């Protein structure tokens, strides 16, 4: 199991449990598309490696969130992964935030 989903009112937290977001874990991460709520935060706290196949899986979540008019956020992103996300303009669609910030604005 690569992800664990936590649901609160209006907020989904997708805990990514695998250390690699890549071609092998992509399918399970994409499956989170069925769990999106008004706001969904992906928790990268356990992730040590992300490549373009993994970014593709994340983009599929972005696409699905847009279709549903919902918002995606990223939690606990390392400096290296932040750099990679910035290279491909990912943070425009999945901005960085903290759990505290999200919870403070959850209705």
């Amino acid at each position: 199991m690569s992800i664990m989903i936590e649901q609160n009112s209006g907020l989904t937290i997708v805990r990514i449990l695998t250390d690699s977001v890549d071609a092998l874990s992509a399918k399970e991460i994409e499956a989170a598309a069925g769990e999106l709520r008004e706001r969904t935060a992906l928790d990268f706290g356990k992730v040590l490696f992300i490549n373009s196949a993994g970014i593709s899986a994340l983009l599929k979540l972005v696409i699905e969130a847009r279709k549903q008019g919902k918002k995606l956020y990223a939690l606990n992103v390392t400096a290296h992964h932040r750099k990679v996300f910035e290279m491909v303009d990912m943070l425009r669609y999945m901005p960085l935030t903290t759990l505290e910030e999200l919870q403070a604005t959850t209705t």
Partner: protein
Amino acid sequence: MMTEMNDIEINIPSDHVFERIVRDSAVVVARYLGFAEERTADLQLAVSEAVTNAIEHGNKGRIDVKVGVHFLLQHDRLAVRVIDQGGNAPADLTHQPAPHMEEKLAEDSPRGLGIFLIQQLVDGVELHSGEGRTEFTMWFNLKETPAEEIPPAAPGPGAHPPPGDEQSGEET
């Protein structure tokens, strides 16, 4: 001190499971050479992207066809050469413009970021492609990984001094 590492060769079947072996090996090589942690992560990602490309586009995912990866130390730079059996690779394999994310998001299966990422992470790329064989080489300048950038706890057990501390030897 002259490093003992001049050429390491790994061959894997064309399956993503084995890409992880190469990516982990890249980390070992980077730490052996004294790369800073950020530079190590860059190398790891670039190698992963090149090998993924070789598996998917070069060898078309045929598990019985091998991807070869060579780590070659040449004076002040590390070359990582990824070899597949695809051949006739497109010339734009060495030059991809920045992705238009809005266009990517219009696709059902947004891919094609790998080569762009490699370009951002390495110091140079080189492509040789002909009938039934493609060699994609990425260069990493060693002088960009000075020892003072390495966090104290970063190198693993048995880490070696950075290449800058070594005397130059003959290229092999």
